[in-house]
């Protein structure tokens, strides 16, 4: 294949494959420039129509040249660095996810600055230099590998040197300043409230992290994001070989690549003339410039200019072979060419400005949407606001940078001297032409990647649609991988044409983040696996692991679920653990229970307001169980309250609710009762807690704590003692969650393992996990908040009237108990269930119905099973359930529909074991 590289263009060779064929490019190429250099014209088939498509643009606005490579499902050939061995496959609109894992690393960086400049073109560099000169902390972010914005595309000179050289020097100088950070290959893709911007830095496969997200909070922002060249809709405008004029110029000047041999240039404005000059100088024959205006721009001597003409047809099924041009009063001409360069003018890149909440206004002079009013602290400079001359961009950027720095509180320092630029040619005003009128619009493409034509848009308007948002959705224009960078405004213009409305009235569709596609894993960063959510473990964790316990996730905590012995399954292990506690003694790691130290002269008063029962009457040295409700009267949490001193309590919470309860306390204290003198402090992690339960627990404790009087009279139920256990300072609470004689031994977290090993060292204690704890408490009818309650359950529903104070004038939730619904007699009550078949384990979550035959749905439910276990001590399965009017149904037979079966159960008290509480004292 012919090389289309300019003679004498130097570069280190790079080998690559595309669609299974081998090619060679040079370092610095993109995949697109390398393909063009190899004369590859057709790079994809269009998604819906299967038409051949070529490279159309030179950067992120490219609609056609989509590829996949390695694990990357979709990328634009125009932004993909050519690397040795790259093996890319063209895509037809849809990417393919790889089964191979992504092994790259991703990071996020937080940054703060006084002035963030987005874009390192002439305006951005001038802005950054002007701002940096004041001493302001500046970040300048640019999405390309080479600085200069359009300068490397246009090869204009700045300060007497080639523009790209000036840009590189200026950026290097900026980078050398202590308070300036230069981010190359970094796309700012989102602009959020309070000047919070997010950017992705592409560091490459060899970097420690392949990509990084920058989360930038800027006092002031300067957007110098440039402009995109506008396409024109005409018949056959999707043929390979049709290309934006400025992009062709970029391939020539940046990469030394000639996208064709003989070109027709179709333009509405002067910029394409410069493109034609550069391409001609590079060796492309310019067959003609077709200018829609009546007055020509400044063409090179000898170039034919057809003013007042448009392109009406493009010949060549597989790529441009000829271009037909028409002009009023002229005979149509078919011009032989393999390249058709198009320029419909330039659209300022207002995406980020619009994301920032800025309003757009239509500028009649440029025929484009430009920034209007905005509330955030942002300046827009250069082409991004419709300034299209080099000198103008430098001046505009410098002024914007200076204003931004001043607004951020910096006084003018080293003035930035605007460099000399060549004198501009006098410009002819641009025409605004969006589409070439025709009888048939079937190949006038508006969105190349979505295969949307002017005919499609007209069908939408013909169906009655008036809003560009509707037309976008009807046609899918602007929804492809290129996010409508080229098609967005064009679609609006075509709608305007169809409806006879000015573009200004139609506006654009909304510009949404991200400006460029950003990888899922880039955004997920390090928050994956164990870091997706922190893991919390107790100080005894290693022992549980060593003992082979499977773990249950409870909130962020890992809790040992049960401790299987060789050959045991979970059921066998739990039955054995339960038996041990009921007949001998067992121990459980209870360290995850939330613990809050409540101190202050008004602590007792405070707890009286929070809990449904009375806490102020609790004596120092004693413990009380308590329930908290939300103001709506529904149970929120439960636990024990121990009184350490007149002005000090230790409150325990459920494992999952510890943070919520502390937040709850602080909220009431700070916002409702700031006059109460109380502090609340989480001490959950301060303590390791070992629950010792079973008739043998007293003896075990006595052995470990020789200084403690453990007899029932000296150490009664619901009291606590400070003592030494196994030689460790300990607080022992005589409380029970199993109905058995039991103690909770609390020691400093760092002593936890020593305590546990001492307990286990007695040789008589069986370790048990959360499952056994659940069975034991259920046998006693103790509910678990969150399992036997669901946010719709009152203390009375749980059969806990006794925990609701009748004496206190108020507590949180009290008023709600008097509402119509909370005093209904048929509310769901917590009851016990015994299956008729004592071997039948009901699934938790199963529902109850009244009759032994099931009518057609919908069948009203009476309630559901909240807890269900096999009980060693009952010799039967059993369950707890919330059942409508349950307390009035004692002894009733109800049914649990399971598949086609209706399983009979008998309603019982929720307290199934030791209802008298005889076992409490051992």
């Amino acid at each position, binding site marked *: 294949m012919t090389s289309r590289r300019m003679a004498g263009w130097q570069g280190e060779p790079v080998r690559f494959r595309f669609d299974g064929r081998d090619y060679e490019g040079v370092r610095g190429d993109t995949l697109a420039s390398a393909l063009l250099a190899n004369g590859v014209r057709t790079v994809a088939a269009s998604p819906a129509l299967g038409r051949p498509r070529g490279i159309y643009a030179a950067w992120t606005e490219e609609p056609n040249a989509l590829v996949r490579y390695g694990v990357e499902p979709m990328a634009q050939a125009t932004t993909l660095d050519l690397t040795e061995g790259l093996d890319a496959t063209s895509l037809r609109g849809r990417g393919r996810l790889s089964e191979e894992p*992504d092994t790259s690393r991703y990071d996020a960086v937080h940054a703060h600055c006084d002035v963030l400049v987005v874009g390192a073109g002439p305006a951005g560099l001038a802005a950054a230099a002007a701002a940096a000169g004041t001493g302001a902390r500046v970040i300048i972010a640019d999405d390309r590998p080479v600085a200069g914005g359009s300068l490397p595309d246009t090869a204009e000179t700045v300060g007497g040197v080639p523009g790209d050289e000036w840009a590189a020097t200026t950026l290097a100088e900026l980078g050398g300043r202590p308070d300036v950070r230069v981010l190359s290959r970094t796309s700012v893709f989102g602009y959020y409230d309070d000047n919070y911007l997010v950017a992705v830095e592409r560091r490459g496969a060899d970097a420690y992290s392949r990509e990084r997200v920058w989360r930038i909070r800027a006092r002031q922002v300067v957007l110098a994001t440039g402009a995109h060249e506008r396409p024109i809709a005409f018949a056959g405008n999707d043929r390979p070989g049709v290309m934006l004029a400025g992009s062709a110029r970029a391939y020539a000047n940046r990469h030394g690549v000639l996208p064709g041999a003989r070109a027709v240039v179709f333009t509405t404005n002067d910029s394409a003339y410069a493109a034609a000059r550069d391409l001609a100088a590079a060796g492309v024959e310019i067959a003609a410039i077709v200018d829609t205006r009546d007055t020509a721009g400044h063409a090179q001597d000898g170039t034919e200019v057809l003013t007042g003409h448009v392109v009406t047809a493009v010949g060549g099924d597989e790529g441009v072979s000829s271009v037909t041009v028409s002009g009023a009063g002229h005979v149509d001409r078919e011009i032989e060419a393999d390249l058709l360069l198009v320029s419909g003018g330039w659209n300022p890149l207002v995406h980020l400005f619009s994301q920032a909440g800025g309003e757009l206004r239509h500028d009649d002079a440029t025929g484009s949407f430009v920034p209007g009013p905005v509330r955030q602290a942002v300046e827009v400079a250069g082409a991004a606001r419709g300034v299209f001359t080099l000198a103008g961009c430098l001046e505009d950027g410098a002024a914007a940078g200076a204003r931004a720095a001043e607004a951020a509180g910096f006084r003018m320092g080293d003035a930035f001297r605007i460099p000399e630029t060549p004198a501009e040619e006098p410009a002819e005003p641009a025409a605004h032409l969006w589409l070439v009128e025709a009888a048939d619009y079937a190949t006038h493409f508006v969105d190349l990647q979505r295969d949307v034509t002017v005919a499609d848009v007209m069908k939408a308007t013909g169906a009655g649609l008036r809003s560009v948002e509707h037309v976008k959705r009807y046609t899918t224009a602007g929804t492809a991988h290129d996010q409508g960078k080229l098609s967005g405004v064009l679609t609006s213009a075509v709608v305007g044409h169809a409806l006879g409305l000015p573009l200004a009235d139609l506006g654009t569709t909304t510009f949404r983040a991200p400006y460029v596609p950003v990888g899922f*894993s880039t*955004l997920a960063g390090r928050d994956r696996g164990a870091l997706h959510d922190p893991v919390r473990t107790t100080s005894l964790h290693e022992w549980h692991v060593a003992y082979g316990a499977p773990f249950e996730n409870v909130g962020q905590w890992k809790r040992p679920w049960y401790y299987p012995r060789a050959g045991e399954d979970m059921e066998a292990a739990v039955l054995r653990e339960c038996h041990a506690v009921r007949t001998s003694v067992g121990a459980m790691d209870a360290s995850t229970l939330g613990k809050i130290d409540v101190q202050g002269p008004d602590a007792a008063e405070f707890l009286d307001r929070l809990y449904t029962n009375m806490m102020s009457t609790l004596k120092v040295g004693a413990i009380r169980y308590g329930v908290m409700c939300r103001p709506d009267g529904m149970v929120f949490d439960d636990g024990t309250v121990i009184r350490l001193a007149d002005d000090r309590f230790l409150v325990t919470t459920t494992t999952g609710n510890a943070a919520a309860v502390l937040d709850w306390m602080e909220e009431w204290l700070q916002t409702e009762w700031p006059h109460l003198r109380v502090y609340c402090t989480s001490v959950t992690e301060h303590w390791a807690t070992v629950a010792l339960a079973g008739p043998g627990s007293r003896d075990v404790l006595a052995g470990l704590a020789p200084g403690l009087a453990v007899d029932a009279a000296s150490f009664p139920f619901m009291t606590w003692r400070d003592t030494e256990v196994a030689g460790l300072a300990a607080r022992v609470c005589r409380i029970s969650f199993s109905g058995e004689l039991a103690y909770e031994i609390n020691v400093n977290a760092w002593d936890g393992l020593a305590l546990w090993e001492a307990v286990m060292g007695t040789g008589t204690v069986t370790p048990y996990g959360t499952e056994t704890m659940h069975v034991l408490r259920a046998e006693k009818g103790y509910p678990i908040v*969150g399992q036997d309650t669901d946010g719709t359950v009152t203390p009375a529903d749980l059969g806990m009237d006794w925990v609701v104070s009748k004496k206190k004038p108020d507590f949180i939730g009290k008023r709600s108990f008097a509402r119509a*619904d909370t005093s209904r007699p048929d509310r769901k009550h917590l009851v016990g269930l015994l299956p008729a078949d004592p071997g039948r384990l009901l699934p938790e979550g199963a529902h109850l119905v009244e009759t032994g035959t099931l009518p057609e749905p919908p069948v009203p*439910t009476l309630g559901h099973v909240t807890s269900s276990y096999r009980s060693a001590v009952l010799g039967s399965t059993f369950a707890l359930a919330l059942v409508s009017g349950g307390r009035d149904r004692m002894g009733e037979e109800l049914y649990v529909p399971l598949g086609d079966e209706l399983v009979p159960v008998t309603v019982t008290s929720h307290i199934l074991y030791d209802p008298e509480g005889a076992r409490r004292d051992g």
Partner: protein
Amino acid sequence: MTKDFPDHPDWLWSSPEPRRSYDVVIVGGGGHGLATAYYLAKNHGITDVAVLERGWLAGGNMARNTTIIRSNYLWDESAGIYEHALKLWEGLEDDLGYPILFSQRGVLNLAHSLQDVRESVRRVHANRLNGVDAEWLTPEEVKEVCPIVDVSPDVRYPVLGATYQPRAGIAKHDYVAWGFARAAAAMGVHLIENCEVTGVEVAGGRVQAVQTTRGRIAAGTVALAAAGHSSVVAATAGVELPVQTHPLQALVSELLEPVHPTVVMSNAVHVYVSQAHKGELVMGAGIDPYNSYRRRGAFHIIEQQMSAALELFPIFARAHVLRTWAGIVDVTPDASPVVGTTPVDGLLVNCGWGTGGFKATPGVGWCYAHTIAHGEPHPLNAPFSLERFTTGALVDEHGAAAVAH
């Protein structure tokens, strides 16, 4: 390959000038407003109806949701209205004569903790009693339904199982709205865009008219269907609603070859994702916590969403976020809607659908039309009255629905 979508009808709706008076004015031209207008005309023969839309038709949450349709709600009251909706969805394409791309590809709701499992099984059993198709799947069965879900035990919150509703699925939201709009317009309903209601006129305890940016429009009945803006409109009639307005974000990836055959939702890991007809992954994020009418969420919510998505779907690692957006949703204290009468005669309200409004579209349209036609609620929306907040008879769907509708 041909174009991705079936052809649209050649005619959708016209844009008439508003008349000075209508029997019924529906405030809000989203899915609910349009469906209500359609069923008013079709079921009740009431066609002197205007649907007033402040922007472009179906441009609010109807254009911004993740298009999930399911009826596997916990409580009987919810199952009633959502299952009614699902049954209507099943015949809607024929009913409207519009290709709405309703795809019953099933929805998985994953469970990641023992408590999740209990709640999920509870919902499955409740659903079956209500005639809602529901199954409990083991992790292995989850893998069979959706092979790309990581069900290995070493993820942070392993998949312990899932509920599965095979009849659930997705539909093309815009087409649903346009189908209702077209059919309603064909029966004489006026669809009026760029017409913002700025006030509701009340005299003697009875609604009289609405004030709009296109003039006063008198009405016998004013039915609100304004989602996130319900409070603002109702307040002009002196009616307070127990709703708070929040941004809810969603995103899509680039178009990808099919990898994801169903819909997966996870409350614990905060993901809901499907792959739309064209091939893009459609994902919903968590709700932004503060009240806001700005259709813009915060970016860290999206970042958290990505981290959650990759926990469950490692294959998504190199997919790209192409577009993000936000709707503004009206959230009630019990995560259930308010549909019914207000203290003002002739002023009806339909709001509080939070993150779950799309799937209810035909069901709520049906019931709300009944409520408008009869002046009192349909049995299916009767439980969703304003009064429930006074009696305490809430329909608390937090536990089973959480954020991920």
